[in-house]
């Protein structure tokens, strides 16, 4: 198990920052995570001692920098059990990775009438790129619906997948916490010859990830949600797919040669990394992966399962009918993301009142407006936990909620 006191000491903002003389109770990690000391230090030290261009210059300093950057690829490959580090492409965030898939793979392989299947609990990042493609070339989008407890309704999966070319789905909902059966969905997609695209933004930071066990085709995720820096995201893909895809952005580094007449592309991963990449960020990400590996992702998951159980029980016991928590109750099929409605209060006001005791949660549609429609709400309040949260944080959330009605007197 994790020792949260020890873990939290590694996060300067959580250990030292105060607002109104009190510590910050950070419950917004589904949005973005805090950064441990060693990630900050790795970036600092790299900029102080080793910063140089990568892949372009041949002096020793540039060699050191190139090795450090490529080290990030290896670390990420290890974390998700990718067969080869060359299959890891660095993007600016997960959204770029998903756009890359929709644009580079989609433009090549999809035409009018082709079917892409999504789920009703996708993040906008896994919806809008496909809708842009739909605008451009008239593909059809079908949606996997939800059961009452916020799981995917797979009863008509065969029907939805019939004739589909792509199944793109989240491995964990950023609103409901739901963990869909990733392996099953990948194999269902393959059974009809469809591509299996996984949005693993919320999954990789919190679980043991094995892209080979999933047998996924393309997997997108973000550094900033897994203790790493902003400015870097990842697309992992099967080499033969990446190889066959045209480039996405054009420019330096992604070319084999350029003449006045045209260009040819470099091998993967360079083919998808136009321009100067996030060099310092890859170094910070390496430190983040090493941090996660030392804690052990199985331990992280175990800790969060226990905390999720505690949170669901605490909130339901203390607030009964005054609170509606969306998503499954079974912690085996959900992660530590709690979206809820509280009395008649608007989520913005709930979040504002919680902020008064430094409890940081998100209020809004969480970039999942179609899901809000399915839930029949305009927005929710969302608390989300990570490896540095403990029961005291959940208690602080509950205490904050306790005071909320006093103010509004509704």
């Amino acid at each position, binding site marked *: 198990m994790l020792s949260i006191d020890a873990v939290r000491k590694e996060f300067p903002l959580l250990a030292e920052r105060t607002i109104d003389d009190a510590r910050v109770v950070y419950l917004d990690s589904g949005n973005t995570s805090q950064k441990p000391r060693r990630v900050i230090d790795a970036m600092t030290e790299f900029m102080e001692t080793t910063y140089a261009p990568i892949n372009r210059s041949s002096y020793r300093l540039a060699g050191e920098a190139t090795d450090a950057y490529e080290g990030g690829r290896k670390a990420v490959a290890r974390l998700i059990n990718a067969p080869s580090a060359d299959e890891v492409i660095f993007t600016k965030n997960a959204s770029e990775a998903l756009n890359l898939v929709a644009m580079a793979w989609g433009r090549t392989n999809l035409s009018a009438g082709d079917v892409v299947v999504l789920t009703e609990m996708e993040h906008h990042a896994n919806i809008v790129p496909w809708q842009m493609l739909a605008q451009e070339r008239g593909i059809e989008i079908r949606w996997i619906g939800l059961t009452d407890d916020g799981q995917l309704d797979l009863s008509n999966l065969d029907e939805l997948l019939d004739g589909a070319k792509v199944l793109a789905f989240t491995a964990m909902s950023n609103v409901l916490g739901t963990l869909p059966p990733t392996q099953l969905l990948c194999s269902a997609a393959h059974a009809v010859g469809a591509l299996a695209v996984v949005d693993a933004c919320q999954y990789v930071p919190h679980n043991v990830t094995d892209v080979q066990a999933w047998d996924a085709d393309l997997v997108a995720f973000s550094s900033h949600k897994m203790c790493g820096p902003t400015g870097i995201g990842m697309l992992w893909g099967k080499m033969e797919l990446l190889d066959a895809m045209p480039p996405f952005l054009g420019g330096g580094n992604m070319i084999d040669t350029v003449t006045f007449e045209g260009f040819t592309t470099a091998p993967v991963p360079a083919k998808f990394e136009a321009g100067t990449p996030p060099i310092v960020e890859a170094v910070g990400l390496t430190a983040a992966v090493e941090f996660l590996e030392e804690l052990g992702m199985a331990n992280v998951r175990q800790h969060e399962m226990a905390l999720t159980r505690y949170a669901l029980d605490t909130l339901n016991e203390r607030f009964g009918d005054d609170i509606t928590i969306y998503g499954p109750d079974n912690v085996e099929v959900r992660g530590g993301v709690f979206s809820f409605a509280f009395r008649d209060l*608007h989520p913005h006001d709930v979040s*504002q009142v919680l902020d008064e005791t430094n409890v940081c949660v998100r209020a809004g549609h969480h970039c999942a407006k179609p899901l809000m429609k399915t839930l029949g709400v305009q*927005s929710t309040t969302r608390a989300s936990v990570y490896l540095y949260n403990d029961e005291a944080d959940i208690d602080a959330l509950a205490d904050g909620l306790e005071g909320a009605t006093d103010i509004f007197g509704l």
Partner: protein
Amino acid sequence: MSGLEDLYREIILDHYRTPRNRGELDTPPATKVDGHNPLCGDEISVYLMVEDAENGDDAIVTDIKIGGQGCSISQSSASMMTNAVIGKRVGDVRAVSRKFKSLMGIENVDLQAGDDEVDLEDLEALQGVVKFPVRIKCAVLGWNTLSSALDEALDPAE
């Protein structure tokens, strides 16, 4: 709890609990425009009646009603807005709007001569919002929607 009290002044909570001019107007003759806050999904509908629209800035806002849902800030701001504009010249409504947006710290507001003297009345109570960038969008949601409604009412062809 000083920050919170500064934000949720009693007058704001009063407008939130008992919103003024809630409802609908028949369209036509009224103009209806929907607005929403892309960050949180809040939605607002402004129903606007303008008399003698052809007079431009001298036309008169004779009635306004508010529909939709939102948080205490967007709802109270819209409620106070209705009080501040009913019966006013369009030119004066626009001045209040500019003054209010500049109170909210919105940049690129083209303040004009005379705007200084505009009295925001109850709306002054919303100044605590400035400290919360995300909530500023709530406070101005009604006003941005009203702007579109005014444009549409004065130039329905557009």
